[in-house]
């Protein structure tokens, strides 16, 4: 499989980027949001530059879908910390992340209602 990946990365140089779709289209292709038989699907098999970009967007889409093991917990801890910190900045001292998150949410809702009335 590595050999075939290298085939696409090397065998179709297109330094002038002739006929290349824009970056948004490649992102959509990597996220599987393009309709069947979209021309970009055919293009990436004939342009090494676009194939490289497409692979990059695929890596990112994959990382979004399947975060690395170990990340969720640390991310949760980081976010929990930031809820408490946000609550503290807004003038309360709730140490429990869940309570802090609820308190911040209520404040945001209150602000939203206040500004939507005025």
């Amino acid at each position, binding site marked *: *499989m*590595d*050999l*075939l*990946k*290298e*085939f*696409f*990365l*090397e*065998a*179709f*140089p297109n*330094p002038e*980027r002739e006929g290349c779709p824009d*970056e948004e289209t490649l992102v959509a292709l990597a996220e599987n949001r393009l309709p*069947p*038989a979209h021309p970009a*699907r*055919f293009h*990436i*098999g*004939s342009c*090494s*530059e676009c*194939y*490289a*970009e*497409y*692979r*990059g967007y*695929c*890596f990112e889409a994959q990382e979004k879908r399947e975060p690395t093991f170990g990340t969720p917990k640390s991310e949760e801890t980081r976010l929990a910390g930031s809820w408490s910190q946000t609550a503290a900045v807004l003038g309360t001292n709730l140490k429990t992340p869940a309570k802090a998150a609820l308190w911040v949410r209520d404040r945001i809702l209150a602000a939203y209602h206040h500004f939507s009335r005025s």
Partner: protein
Amino acid sequence: MMRQQELHLIDLNGDSVTPSIRAAVECAYRWVLKDYPQVDPAIVANLAERLATSMETNKETIWSAHRYATSALHRQVRHWLRQKSSKEIAVGLEKELEQWAGPNHEFLRAIDREMLFQHLKSTLNERDRSILVMLVQSNANPSDVAIALGISIDAATKAIQRIRERIAHSLDAAGVHKSSNEPQRRTGLERKWTY
């Protein structure tokens, strides 16, 4: 897992490059490391740093920093890999030539690869290649291919089978299986094509 290097991205005066160039080069660096895990990250980092300096110098002429950085860094790494495999030395004596040409498996592999790529290019058409991209990239099965190309599952299965045969033929024609000292590569490839 190898740790990514911290990139030191500066212009010719030693000042930090503009944020858009920094973001583009850092992203290209991350992607290239994934595409070429066999290359030392320190070498890629060095290439990325030089690229950022050159991009900063020529930023007026670059219309998309992200696109430019991605393709330039890929190109530079491939160039580095090619240079590594084709050692250019001046030889006068026959013995020296034999010594050089004999055991250089890297160089032979590079030639095999070049032949294989040429053969694949001539045997796979645009549609075959787009199916192959799906198989390589996302391990697609015939129904995924059918949905993506708007064809029937039967047609997708036949197309995959045909591609598999063409690749096997190209591998034979390029003699990859004869000289490659990494048989698992070929076996892995064939296993992947069994549906």
